[in-house]
């Protein structure tokens, strides 16, 4: 399933930390890892083609661009779940929506152009579904890192 060798793991772990904004960034990272530039590029291309990485590039923060994000949760009666999911998903502001095994069984992320937009969409969803939307805005984000076990 995971056709990763040690070099792939080192590449994945290094490139989760960031990528230089320099004229020859692959050459710079390759030198750090003791690789040739073309080897690094070829391996990255293969990791992308085989979908072992979903994305390689800038991660933009919509909040820093003036938009807002908010994690929300609802307690949806079991028999009504699919109908409510359709109502919620119909909003273009709903970016992700997951069913989870908890009394609060629907968890979705709202992404809006303005901070005020979050509350407005949440209110609309409450009116449409008759259910309470709990809002869990991010107060602090800690270092995000995920290492591929060697």
């Amino acid at each position: 399933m995971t056709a990763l060798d040690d070099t792939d793991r080192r590449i994945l772990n290094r490139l989760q930390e960031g990528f230089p904004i320099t004229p020859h960034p692959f050459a710079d990272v390759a030198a750090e890892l003791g690789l040739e530039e073309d080897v690094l590029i070829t391996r990255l291309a293969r990791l992308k083609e085989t979908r072992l990485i979903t994305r390689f590039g800038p991660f933009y923060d919509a909040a820093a661009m003036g938009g807002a994000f908010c994690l929300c949760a609802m307690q949806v009666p079991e028999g009504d779940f699919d109908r409510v999911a359709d109502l919620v998903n119909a909003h273009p502001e709903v970016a992700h929506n997951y069913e989870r095994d908890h009394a609060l069984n629907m968890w979705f992320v709202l992404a809006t152009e303005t901070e005020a937009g979050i509350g407005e969409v949440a209110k609309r969803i409450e009116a449409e579904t008759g259910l309470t939307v709990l809002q869990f805005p991010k107060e602090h984000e800690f270092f995000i890192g995920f290492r591929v076990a060697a």
Partner: protein
Amino acid sequence: MSIDTTDRRLIEATQSGLPLVPEPYAAIAAGLGLDESEVMQRLQAMQDSGVIRRIAVAPNHYALGMVANGMTVWDVEDAVALNLGAQIGTLDFVSHCYLRPRALPDWPYNLFAMVHGKTRDEVATKRAEIRALLGDALRSDDILYSTRILKKTGLRLGKG
């Protein structure tokens, strides 16, 4: 930071990824009719101001065999939440960690940490490691596994 029309074009050109060529910024610049130096300057400015969180790879947890993904949630004392969140964030099996407001009485938890493993047993073991790290500061905790993806769309840039 306010972003201008050129920044938006740059964001649109790069939000699905960087080209895998020796001079990726020059390649992007050529596509947009800009200078390489301007592209690099603008990306650097956006990174410095936090519009770009980082330029990096996103591993596919599922394809890497990490098919068990649990949202662990923790109720810890507010006074130590920032410090403990930072410690959880350094664990190599945690991909995201956030401090969020509680929603009492339904939801007493203020720290959220996504934990990935090959099996639910492995995730449970890792959850126990976090519990041990939190020690006496921990009041209660839970774990929520996702059972279905109902919707998943990428970041869509609004019209500026």
